[in-house]
């Protein structure tokens, strides 16, 4: 575990999480959530959990983002908060 890389990725995880819940556009929010999941996958491969890492990369960053984008396209992009 390289602690410099770990700290940088942790900071980016927190930034991506905050921006995912504060962007006033649901499509941008879904994309930021995909970035959050990918940063989380990098964090787990740094910590040595490679099986969790590639499951998260395929399921969290892939399928979840597709679900969010499909749901946003079938409903609305508008949000007030």
């Amino acid at each position, binding site marked *: *575990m390289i602690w410099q890389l*770990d*700290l940088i990725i*942790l900071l980016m*995880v*927190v930034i991506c*999480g*905050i921006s*995912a*819940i504060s962007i006033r556009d*649901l499509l941008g*929010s*879904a994309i930021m*959530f995909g970035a*959050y*999941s990918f940063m*989380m996958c990098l*964090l*787990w491969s740094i*910590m*040595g*959990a*490679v*099986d*969790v890492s590639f*499951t*998260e990369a395929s*399921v*969290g960053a892939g*399928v*979840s983002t597709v*679900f*969010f984008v499909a*749901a*946003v396209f*079938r*409903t*609305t992009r*508008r*949000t*007030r*908060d």
Partner: protein
Amino acid sequence: MEAITTLIIAKYNYWAVILLIVIGLYAMIAKKNLVKKIIGMNIFQTAIILFYVSIGAKRGATLPIIVHAHGDAAHAIHAADYINPLPHVLMLTAIVVSVATLGVALALAMKIYFHYGTLEEDEIQKKIMDREPDKVATSGEHL
């Protein structure tokens, strides 16, 4: 003071876990939009998975695959040389469960949108009260 600083610096993964849990709880409670609430739920789940994976991590350890397993079998295996793989295996299940809950939650949000025409929680409550004022009035107090 020195001990507190050492504690904060040495356990920074757990501070990040606490921060992410607070972000997820804030999004679930304070945001009015249903999709934002679902994103908050997912951030909460990944924070808990990060907590469990941080428990299994060790400094100076390698992946949990035994070195020189074939050939010379007669050597000792030190547990401190390998990362604990048990939390990883448990959290593999949690990731799949989180995707299943995400699919169900988004399907429910889409049904709510097709029925009420909005994803905002307060607008939905207003439409419920406009649509059935007598039923809300007879059923006692509401929010």
